[in-house]
């Protein structure tokens, strides 16, 4: 018999390898040092004018750059050295003003035709790039309590409207709402009414002395929804903040039930990042000052979108953003954009009390932000970057009060749906739904990142070389064939990782090294099996065939079990463990393909077509 693969099978293998090579290719192109310019708000779009301005700034400072262009609505300026990048960032931050965020970045130099088919290099994890990793916990208990207070007020309103007499509705420490009634009828009526109005409530009743109680608890689903909402809101807030920091490719992601991960590659000043992220921006609702108001009781503010426009407001604040329970961008009857705002109980009360006496006057929404400004100063003849914290208060809207406002009202008079959604977002972002605190923090300096890459690559190279030499010596021609398969295996691992958009971490590199060591196992199994067949006197070609055939089930069982372990690692692990699990899983799959299909094809091509008396194995 002869061992030959049909043409289609060989072509298929070639096709797979070509695709793998193409998708692995972007990793070969070195990254450029770059700065990325983006608008700090939607109104500030980066366009060719801004790029020209940036180029101008750089030319004035005498900083040479490779290219400056618009990429994905952001300006990308590339440099030859990290030093030029650093100087450019400082110059551009000063030159372009606060409306634009200048972030340091490493820009891939992947050729356009590769980018066009979706090929891109692997992302490097923080341990390889340097940067900051924060894990924050959202105090969801607080969020639920806040909402319960709103419910308490809703219940009171409902009872009042239905003319059901009650003594009190209070929030207890154990998270239950308790309503007190003077008699059983009132309580039962209240219960049936509330049951109709609020599907999310669960009820319990009690009686003590001359008081009848109705205990109200939220069902599990509602509590979860409130928590989810709080976390979503905090995610929005944090994303905004992170954008303000000027980080390229930040990651802000929910983790588990009440945690948020923030990863900022390239940031070295963790303390500064923390201040900004932990900070609470806020909103203020104020009335416009009457024309006869005294100077001492008023304050002048600029509009956020139009610094030339100003308005004089009362110093008294009606409520702040922390009273905003929710805000959504919607449209009014005429299809004009507006923002619907829901206030919490106390906010609603304050709002209605103030607006009752201020009909037809105008109310302003002021955006208050605690920011830091970076200033370059000359200290002892050296340029030092210094941060100055400051508070920025700007108007986002000024509108006439048409009727008494309760805990729900709308802000109209907005220019575009984009403005309304941005405002809604800011309103939500302004009101941190629940306090957050840091539970984990990891800062990796850039020097360590670089060292880690270098060590990782060295290990892969040396380990790879050793295994290749060993295989060649031990299995001769077959060893060489296995080495070819092993090399292609490495290409495939990198290609799949790149395609998945997986992040390469240090444990990930360790996973690749381990895979290289273990990948030969399948080949070893096959070759040993062929040897055995030969020893037992089988003809060469059938020995090859049954060697591959018999090793198959062993290889399958062995790899599937390892894969089970890897998948569990991925499912249960976090951070570094996940990175390792991904490379291990990918490696197991590709090395099976390499050993069973590629090696087979190579062996077939080398030996399969002719009659052999002896195999040099």
């Amino acid at each position, binding site marked *: 018999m002869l061992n030959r693969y049909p043409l289609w099978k060989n072509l298929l293998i070639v096709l797979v390898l070509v695709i793998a090579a193409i998708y692995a290719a972007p990793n070969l192109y070195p990254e450029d040092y770059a700065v990325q310019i983006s608008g700090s708000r939607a109104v500030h779009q980066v366009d060719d004018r801004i790029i020209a301005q940036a180029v101008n700034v750089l030319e004035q400072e005498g900083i040479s750059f490779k290219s400056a262009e618009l990429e994905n609505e952001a300006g990308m300026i590339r440099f030859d050295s990290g030093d030029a990048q650093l100087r450019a960032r400082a110059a551009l931050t000063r030159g372009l003003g606060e409306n634009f965020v200048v972030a340091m970045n490493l820009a891939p130099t992947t050729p356009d035709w590769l980018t066009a088919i979706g090929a891109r290099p692997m992302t490097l994890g923080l341990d390889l790039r340097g940067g900051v990793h924060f894990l924050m916990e959202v105090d969801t208990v607080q969020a639920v309590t806040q909402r319960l207070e709103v419910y308490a007020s809703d219940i009171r309103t409902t009872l009042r409207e239905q003319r059901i007499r009650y003594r009190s509705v209070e929030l207890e420490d154990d998270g239950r709402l308790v309503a007190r009634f003077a008699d059983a009828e009132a309580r039962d009526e209240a219960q049936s009414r509330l049951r109709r109005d609020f599907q999310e409530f669960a009820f319990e009743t009690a009686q003590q002395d001359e008081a009848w109680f109705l205990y109200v608890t939220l069902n599990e689903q509602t509590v979860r929804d409130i928590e989810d909402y709080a976390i979503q809101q905090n995610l929005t807030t944090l994303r905004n903040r992170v954008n303000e920091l000027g980080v390229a490719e930040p990651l802000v992601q929910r983790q588990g039930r009440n945690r948020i991960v923030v990863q900022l590659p390239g940031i070295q000043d963790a303390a500064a990042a923390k201040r900004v992220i932990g900070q609470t921006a806020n909103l203020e609702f104020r009335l416009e000052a009457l024309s006869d108001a005294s100077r001492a009781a008023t304050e002048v503010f600029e509009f956020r979108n139009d610094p030339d426009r100003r308005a004089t407001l009362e110093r008294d604040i009606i409520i702040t953003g922390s009273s905003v329970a929710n805000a959504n961008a919607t449209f009014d009857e005429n299809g004009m954009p507006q923002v619907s705002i829901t206030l919490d109980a106390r906010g609603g009360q304050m709002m209605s009390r103030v607006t009752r006496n201020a009909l037809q006057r105008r109310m302003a929404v002021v955006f208050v932000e605690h920011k830091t400004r970076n200033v370059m100063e000359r200290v002892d003849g050296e340029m030092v970057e210094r941060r100055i914290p400051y508070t920025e208060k700007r108007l986002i809207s000024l509108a006439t009060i048409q009727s008494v406002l309760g805990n729900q009202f709308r802000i109209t008079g907005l220019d575009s749906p984009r403005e309304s959604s941005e405002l809604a977002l800011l309103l939500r972002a302004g009101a941190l739904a629940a306090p957050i605190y840091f539970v984990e923090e990891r800062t990796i*300096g850039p020097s360590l990142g670089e060292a880690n890459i270098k060590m990782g690559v060295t290990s892969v190279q040396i380990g790879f070389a050793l295994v290749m030499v060993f295989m060649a010596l031990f299995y001769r021609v077959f060893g060489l064939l296995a080495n070819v398969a092993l090399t292609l295996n490495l290409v495939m691992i990198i290609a799949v990782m790149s395609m998945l958009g997986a992040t390469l971490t240090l444990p990930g590199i360790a996973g690749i090294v381990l895979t290289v060591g273990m990948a030969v196992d399948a080949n070893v199994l096959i070759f040993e099996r062929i040897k055995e067949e030969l020893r037992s006197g089988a003809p060469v070609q059938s020995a090859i065939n049954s060697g591959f055939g018999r090793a198959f089930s062993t290889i399958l*069982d062995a790899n599937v079990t390892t894969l089970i372990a890897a998948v569990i690692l991925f499912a249960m*692990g976090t951070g570094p*463990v996940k990175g390792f699990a991904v490379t291990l899983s990918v490696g197991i799959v590709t090395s099976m393909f390499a050993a069973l299909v590629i090696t087979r094809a190579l062996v077939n091509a080398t030996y399969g077509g002719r009659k052999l008396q002896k195999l040099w194995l």
Partner: protein
Amino acid sequence: MINIKKEFNFMGARRIAAIFSIVLILVSIGSLAINGLKFGLDFTGGSLVEVTYDQPVELEVVRGHLRGAGYGDAVVQTFGSANDILIRLGEAHDPQLGQTILEILQQEADGSVTLRRNEFVGSQVGEELREQGGLGLLVALIMVMIYLAFRFQFKFSVGAVLALAHDVIIVLGFFSLMQIDFDLTVLAALLAVIGYSLNDTIVVYDRIRENFRVLRVSDSIEVLNTSLNQTLSRTIVTSLTTMMVLVVLAIFGGEMIYGFAIALLAGVIIGTYSSVYVAGNILLLLNVTREDLIPPPPKEDEEEELVP
């Protein structure tokens, strides 16, 4: 080259192997009970700061600086080279600590001090990671056991899992005895050990299963011995290549990967041993016979077993 012609009587040494394994396990459990594991920051919570001085620095000097600032309980050690210093602090400290420490050292040092790494893990997070890790190990073991019971036979799955538990306990014991830091990457390594050791055991079991069916001998010990000898050169070659890359990792991979490489190295060595001596031994203890592996006569309403 290595050419194994001689037939080894592995199962002849099974009593000695059993005693050896039991002693290792007892020592491991004892050490785990007495010394415990030296959990790293990932699992205990706390702060860790790694800094580089531009010139070699005496540990005592750094300790002195920290003591002067009121951090007498800080653990200070070198990390890789004399310029690299690793400082650990207990969980009672606040998240801002890393920054503070860096500032203290920068003030006190003669040359420049740069931050390489600053980590803070809340104690609650650490505890969760520890629980998750333990749970992960257990789930992995159970899933593997189910898969093997399905693919082989119940006795084999018990044997494989016991061999695995044997490996995991001994590697843990090794970490406990040596007081090497046990962090997240080591946990990853431990799970990789499960994968590797299984791989090894299954290759052997696969051959045992085949030989029970093919060889016309009823003596289980003989079948096991033949199987082990047939797979021996593969066992050695694969262990060697894997150990080669692990040694490379341990030497060139840097301090952060060192624990990982050592854990896997220990795991590979013990896993190779266990797949030869322990996995087979347990099969004998469970009294495995040919009958266990001969497919039951197919009934009409049952599908035949697929043999690839």
